[in-house]
């Protein structure tokens, strides 16, 4: 699925590159805010929904090959985090909704 379509369907704001050509390879989703638990439990190609916005979410996402990060609850994201996401090519999206609602929408989309 294209990143732009994905963001539009879920009403997400794209914080990183908005290139039309960016394709997402997604096979599921994981919700979590404790980094060690996410590391151990989230699977590669997952969508990761979290309220953490610290720079280190990118290290975790990169290490376990997360496809896309969605920041829930309209949490403020620092420029450092956004720049790092751009640098490593990790799509970083933001939602006004809570993690549960985002997860429900993903489910409706067949993820």
């Amino acid at each position, binding site marked *: 699925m294209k990143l732009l379509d994905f963001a539009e369907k879920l009403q997400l704001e794209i914080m990183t590159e908005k290139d039309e050509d960016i394709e997402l390879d997604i096979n599921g989703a994981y919700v979590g805010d404790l980094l060690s638990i996410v590391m151990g439990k989230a699977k590669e190609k997952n969508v990761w929904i979290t309220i953490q916005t610290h*720079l280190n979410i990118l290290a975790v996402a990169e290490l376990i090959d997360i496809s896309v990060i969605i920041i829930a609850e309209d949490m403020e994201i620092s420029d450092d985090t956004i720049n790092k996401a751009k640098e490593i090519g990790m799509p970083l999206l933001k939602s006004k909704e809570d993690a549960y609602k985002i997860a429900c929408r993903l489910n409706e989309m067949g993820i």
Partner: protein
Amino acid sequence: MINIPIKSDTYIINANDFSVAGKVSSDIKKDLKKLGIHPKIIRRTAIVCYESEINIIIHSIGGKIVFELYEDRIVINSEDRGPGISDIELAMKEGYSTATNEVRELGFGAGMGLPNMNRWADEFRIESSSKGTLIKMTIFL
């Protein structure tokens, strides 16, 4: 066991420097990918490395991670200075953490660091004193 490493790298890790946490794991992951190591092995190595890095950053006054690749295994040695772990058995329990609230707010300190290392490494050895902590993890290829 074959005792000459094909590859060996030492990474210095500073205390309290969260901005670079994960860098060592990321570098090791890239190296293993280039060498064509199986993705499951890479993932396990990345997780134990990351947990080691975070532990050094949060709990010690600095330390190092030594990565060694042998023909049949990967060895990760995590070595840090002071204050050590007073009760290793308790520290190995899932959910037990001595991390501060400030650190927890960043999503660290879940009390899953040592349990994750123990879970994903084939062999896990830990020694700790008031001078520091030494952890040796082996993952067989």
